[in-house]
């Protein structure tokens, strides 16, 4: 069940475009500047009521950033950030003509346009008339793919992948499968999620949110901090990219996807599925664990996730065998977008030779025997890095990116 990029006669896959709207702002540049500076974007929530909840913070995209995106205010918040990120990725890749229109489109999504749907529902349920029923048309997750496919004029395979917090990473892996199978040479892949009442209230109900900004891998960690964002990658058959003179950000060297089949919300206590996902990705890349210099961890900050992920990392890389950080401590857990946001962070870290830190990390949990890059970004020339994304339902996706050497 492993993939062998380029070694099995199938196309090698490279990343040729990046686009992001994050809590730092719109654009890859602001995203990287925020990560490199170690700026924690987790603050009090403004878009939904938080009175009475245990945690009242999140990494929100500032109102002025949303307002400046340019797309119609009638679109859902999630559609607007998805469009901006997708436009940036396509422009960055410089795709034109058939290479662009034939591209596949895979969107990782969970919340859809639920925020606007909830506003309608809140009014109706409280006995007030509402003029917002039109918002229901974009409430489902597939609305993003419909909007993007239409506005960007894409004609390739179109899918909406709902795999909880692994959705964005899964869209990258499944899109790469289409390229490797020769279905299409190019794909626009990524994830998007905006804050919603249901997500905020649900994780509060599960007591998985830290009342203070999350502290992944810290001994005193008390949960995660939610966030919102959109990140899209243009991935491409390497030969196709080379032939058109496209720029390569990184090579998608390998990826693995597994399921715990253990519990609906809790990870396997020994990290069994996580281990297999990382091992699959390594096998597919042809790399040894020692070749991987950095792991952008799923690292939510919940006691259970971080413990299981540390166990899995120890099994794959050995104690202290790799540098680890969680960018969720900086931009929050962006849910369906997290996998693609963190894939972008991993690629940018390779490009810049600078590893983003784990913010708010003061006392590393002794059960996490790794250098988790506390507080300050660290210069390091690594040539391969792995990004982990795990989701409710025991869904595990590991992606390995490799720097393209000159």
């Amino acid at each position, binding site marked *: *069940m492993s993939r062998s990029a380029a070694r099995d006669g199938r196309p090698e896959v490279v990343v040729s475009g990046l686009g992001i709207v994050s809590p730092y702002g719109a654009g890859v540049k602001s995203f990287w500047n925020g990560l490199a500076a170690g700026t924690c974007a987790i603050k009090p929530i403004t878009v939904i009521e938080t009175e009475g909840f245990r945690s009242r913070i999140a990494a929100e995209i500032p109102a002025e950033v949303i307002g400046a995106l340019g797309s119609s205010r009638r679109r859902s918040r999630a559609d607007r950030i998805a469009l901006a990120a997708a436009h940036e990725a396509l422009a960055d890749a410089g795709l034109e003509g058939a290479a662009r229109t034939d591209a596949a489109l895979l969107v990782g999504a969970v919340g859809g346009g639920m925020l606007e749907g909830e506003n309608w529902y809140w009014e109706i349920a409280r006995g007030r008339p509402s003029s917002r029923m039109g918002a229901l048309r974009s409430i*489902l997750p597939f609305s993003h793919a419909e909007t993007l496919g239409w506005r960007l004029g894409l004609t390739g395979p179109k899918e909406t992948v709902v795999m909880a917090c692994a959705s964005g990473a899964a869209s990258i892996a499944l899109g790469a499968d289409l390229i490797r199978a020769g279905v299409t040479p190019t794909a626009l892949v990524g994830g998007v999620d905006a804050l919603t*009442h249901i997500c905020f209230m649900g994780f509060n109900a599960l007591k998985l949110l830290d009342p203070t900004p999350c502290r992944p891998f810290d001994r005193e960690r008390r949960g995660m901090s939610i966030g919102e964002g959109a990140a899209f990658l243009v991935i491409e058959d390497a030969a196709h990219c080379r032939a058109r003179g496209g720029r390569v950000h990184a090579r998608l060297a390998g990826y693995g996807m597994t399921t715990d089949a253990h519990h609906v919300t809790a990870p396997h206590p020994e990290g069994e599925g996580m281990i297999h996902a990382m091992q699959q990705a390594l096998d597919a890349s042809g790399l040894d664990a020692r070749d991987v210099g950095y792991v952008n961890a799923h690292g939510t900050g919940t006691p259970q996730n971080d413990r299981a992920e540390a166990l899995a990392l120890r099994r794959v890389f050995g104690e202290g065998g790799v540098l680890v950080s969680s960018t969720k401590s900086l931009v929050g857990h962006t849910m369906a977008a997290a996998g693609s946001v963190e894939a972008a962070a991993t690629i940018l870290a390779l490009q810049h030779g600078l590893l983003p830190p784990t913010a708010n990390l003061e006392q590393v949990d002794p059960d996490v025997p790794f250098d988790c890059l506390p507080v300050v970004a660290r210069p390091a020339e690594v040539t391969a890095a792995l990004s982990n994304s795990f989701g409710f339902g025991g869904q595990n996706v590991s992606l390995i990116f490799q720097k393209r050497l000159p």
Partner: protein
Amino acid sequence: MTDRRVVVTGIGTVNAATAGGRDALAGALALGRSTIGPVRAFDTAALSSRLGAEVDEATFASLVDRDAARRLSRICRLALGACLLAVRDAEVAGGPGLGIVVGTEHGDFTSSRDFAHGFLRRGPAGLSPMIFPNTVMNTMASIAAIAIGAKAPSVTVNQATLAGDLAVARGARLVADGRADAVVAGGVDELFHDVYERLAQMGALSPMGGRGTEGCRPFAADHNGPVLGEGATFLVLEERETARARGARIIAEIAATAWGNLPVAPHTGRPGRKDPGSPVARLIRARGKAGVARCYGAGNGDPVVDDWERALLGRDLAAPDDLVPPVSLAPLFGQHGGLGALRVGAAALDAARGTSAVLVHGIARGGCRTALVVEPAS
């Protein structure tokens, strides 16, 4: 490197007509009786739409362990019941080689409503941590993966009209690519009052705001909208040599799959619009053989979908007069996320009886288009 070949080795279905494996589905199709009738689960008196194809609780109550069932939402039980039936029909084992792909259009809105109601009634104290996970659409896949021991990829795809078709196509891709040796793939949706009511109010269901008689009449001159159904249908897709080696009862082969997009505004269709990248044309070209012997379509009575599908297939097929309009199963089972998988299941049963090549086609408002070719196993 060529793709691995993919065969269908099992079927499980829980629909308004029956619950069971390949024989149950074959029986329901042979009977050809519509299950559409007045909705009984909730009051539709104030709505312009009143019909549906409902699954009786008794039909599937025995499929899921009673203790487990108490903790599961209805849509999870529908999905789980059909997955268990499919796995039983195929006699396939769980493990690292087994994956799952679930297609759904609406997911578990019942749980989303119940979760929100808890808050509206009692504030933060009314929120149920047990219900919240169900609000994420992949919970049906998660529950089923645990039950059948699926440790290869577990994927949920969300799509209007074609959720089941797309799930089967993606499942076949996972097997062909070697990501799994077997995949349980299909779709599920349930009839839920709030969704039904909103769609009726938006004029998305027959009789679409009151024009004509309510009913599901795909491709007919007086078609005036879909009628919602519910249920779950899953197929077991398996790598051919693995299936042969274990002595599986192979039903048919998924010979080819393709899907694409016609860029139109969300929720709209343009029956006059051509499709230069037609997945049907691509499949026919790739197969190097002309024509298909039978064609199932996604036409469900929605005039936009029906007319668009008829026009697209008319351009794509070599002998359109024999195949257009395609066969629609929506009048039998109602429109729901499992219907696409049910179409592929019907095509597999046709192929098992010797029909040379069966095309399962789909087009949805918003432009998603799917095509699968099902052939007798060789």
